[in-house]
């Protein structure tokens, strides 16, 4: 367990050079978000340059299009070393665009999404994966843009298994009380040879659903994209809308959100601990963790009026302020419950033995696939939006980024525990600083011209991103939601394939603690 202290200032002088290399860019380089227009002809080279830039990672990639205009492709880069986000915008007026996943593999999943939603695909013959469209003949769904011309070519579904292995079908209806998810588990009888996931049973067309709504109306659905850990995505979305609307939330409301976010992290980490115990068959440990979890949920209800902290975040601020007294009174007890359970777990060898060297994920893979949150930090990669891209309340608090080496389930578990401790500290500090409800101006006011904005927050699963574009009536023309689940699932099969057997997979899944709802949207 190492702790990395990141400084908030110190901008890499190379950034200016990098940006200069990208051609003319919109906003000043010292803002937290830099937007650059990159013509598609220079896109490939630009991606190469940025990918080579130290501390740069491809955080997201998405397209937007109205019925008549050509598709605009946006790449969101986290320039963590420079504490800035860089958005490159390229207009794609052809069916094809440069194959970016060859340079930045993290772009692959998004390439598949964009193909399904907008019908444009990277040049080259490499096959794409099926993401959101069910492989049911005659079943079509509305798209964000225009559907691909003709049936999707080169989309991998179903899987093909050859030689001395067979596919173990698992799901979509799985154990009790877990989300629907299909595992294609390719095995030689003992070890896991390959693993692929289908999540289209849970695709609810969230981004499509948000179009034409006011941000405030949309927020209701954003919170329900991923009910476990709703605060992070909601905050990211609200922040994006606020940027677009030019709102500046009051500090106490920002702190109220932050308190909610840290509570969110606490109960999710407790739930992950319980799930780990369940997956290792340690029922008594599960009970202990669940007692902590239930107490934390009740604390949420006492502080914000909702067990899962729905309806806390509001466009322009926080709808509810925390009941500071309740928090001060109950937080230590509830957290102590978790702490004691964790201490007991860390001395239970039958438990630790199942965690050690299980589901190993290499740091290289985490970086390559652009993973975030505890999963990435478990491989020693110190990515944390709270430290790299501090929003108002965090800038002052300098949160400690907990990392661990090894990349196995145990490392992730240690990260979860360390983060829980840090969350408690942050909550106390923010309560000292003063929190409460509050809103910057009446939200959703029609701004003069169409506007867009990027928002982010470090949710319990890692960096959550949102990008919102509003028309002149203040209604959403395109909303991009990128919860952390969307990125981290793509590391899951890597972790499962590293010399594991069947029975390790539930443990690995528990240690990732992702939601299908979040990635399927």
């Amino acid at each position, binding site marked *: 367990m190492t702790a990395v202290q990141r400084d908030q200032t110190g901008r890499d002088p190379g950034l200016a050079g990098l940006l200069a290399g990208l051609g003319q860019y919109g906003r000043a380089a010292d803002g937290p978000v830099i937007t650059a227009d990159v013509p598609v002809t220079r896109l490939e080279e630009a991606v190469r340059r940025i990918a080579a830039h130290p501390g740069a990672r491809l955080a997201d990639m998405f397209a937007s299009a109205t019925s008549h205009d050509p598709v605009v492709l946006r790449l969101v880069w986290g320039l963590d070393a420079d504490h800035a986000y860089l958005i490159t915008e390229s207009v794609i007026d052809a069916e094809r665009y440069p194959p970016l996943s060859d340079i930045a593999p993290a772009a692959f999943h998004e390439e598949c999404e964009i193909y399904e939603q907008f019908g444009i695909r990277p040049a080259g013959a490499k096959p794409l994966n099926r993401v959101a469209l069910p492989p049911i003949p005659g079943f079509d769904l509305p798209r964000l843009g225009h559907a691909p011309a003709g049936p999707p070519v080169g989309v991998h579904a179903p899987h093909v298994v050859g030689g001395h292995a067979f596919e173990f079908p698992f799901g979509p209806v799985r154990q009790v009380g877990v989300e629907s998810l299909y595992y294609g588990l390719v095995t030689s009888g003992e070890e896991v040879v390959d693993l692929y996931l289908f999540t289209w049973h849970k695709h609810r067309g969230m981004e499509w659903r948000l179009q034409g709504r006011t941000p405030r*109306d949309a927020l209701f659905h954003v919170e329900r994209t991923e009910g476990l850990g709703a605060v992070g995505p909601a905050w990211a979305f609200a922040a994006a809308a606020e940027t677009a609307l030019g709102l500046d939330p009051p500090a106490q409301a920002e702190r109220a959100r932050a308190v909610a976010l840290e509570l969110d992290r606490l109960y999710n980490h407790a739930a992950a601990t319980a799930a780990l115990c369940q997956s290792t068959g340690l029922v*008594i440990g599960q*009970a*202990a963790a669940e007692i902590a979890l239930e107490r934390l949920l009740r604390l949420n*209800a006492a502080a914000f009026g*909702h067990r899962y902290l729905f309806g806390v975040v509001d466009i322009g601020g926080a709808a509810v302020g925390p009941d500071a007294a309740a928090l001060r009174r109950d937080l230590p007890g509830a957290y102590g419950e978790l702490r004691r359970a964790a201490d*007991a777990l860390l001395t239970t060898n039958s438990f630790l033995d199942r965690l050690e060297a299980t589901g190993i994920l290499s740091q290289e893979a985490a970086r390559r696939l652009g993973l975030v949150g505890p999963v990435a930090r478990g491989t020693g990669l110190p990515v944390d939006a709270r430290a790299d891209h501090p929003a108002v309340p965090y800038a002052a608090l300098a949160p400690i980024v907990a990392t661990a080496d090894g990349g196995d389930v145990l490392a992730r578990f240690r990260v979860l525990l360390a983060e829980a401790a840090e969350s408690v500290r942050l909550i106390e500090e923010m309560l000292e600083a003063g929190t409460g409800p509050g809103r910057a101006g009446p939200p959703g006011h029609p701004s003069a011209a169409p506007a867009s904005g990027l928002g982010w927050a470090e949710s319990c699963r890692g960096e959550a991103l949102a990008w919102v574009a509003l028309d002149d009536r203040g209604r959403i023309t395109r909303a991009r939601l990128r919860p952390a689940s969307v990125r981290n699932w793509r590391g899951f099969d890597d972790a499962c394939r590293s010399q594991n057997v069947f029975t390790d997979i539930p443990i690995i899944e528990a240690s990732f603690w992702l939601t299908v709802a979040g990635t399927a949207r």
Partner: protein
Amino acid sequence: MPLWFVRGLRRGVVTTRYPARPDDSAALLPTPPSFRAEALTVALADRLVAVCPSRALTRRREVLVYDVGACTACGRCRAEVPAAVTDSGQFELAATVRARLIKHVPLTHDGRHLETGEKDSP
């Protein structure tokens, strides 16, 4: 394992006695709103209908049709018209007939309650 055993003994029983006895943690739960009819005019009702994100509220002439099943207890209506909306405090809402979850709140226009059929879609 003995460690766990001792912990368990120290922890004691946390299990609720519900349904035999009420559980006080229920007081913390968000509950669907309850409407103060005499304070609720047609105009106010329309504001509530507009603000409800889950379309649990609709107005049929002078009755506010309230689908408790569709309500998520998000509290936006209470925030919109605090005067006319309060917490019902009810959490035992299970129904064996969907229609039983659809309530009709008479609006104060004239004192008359309009009898509309049970068949209402939220």
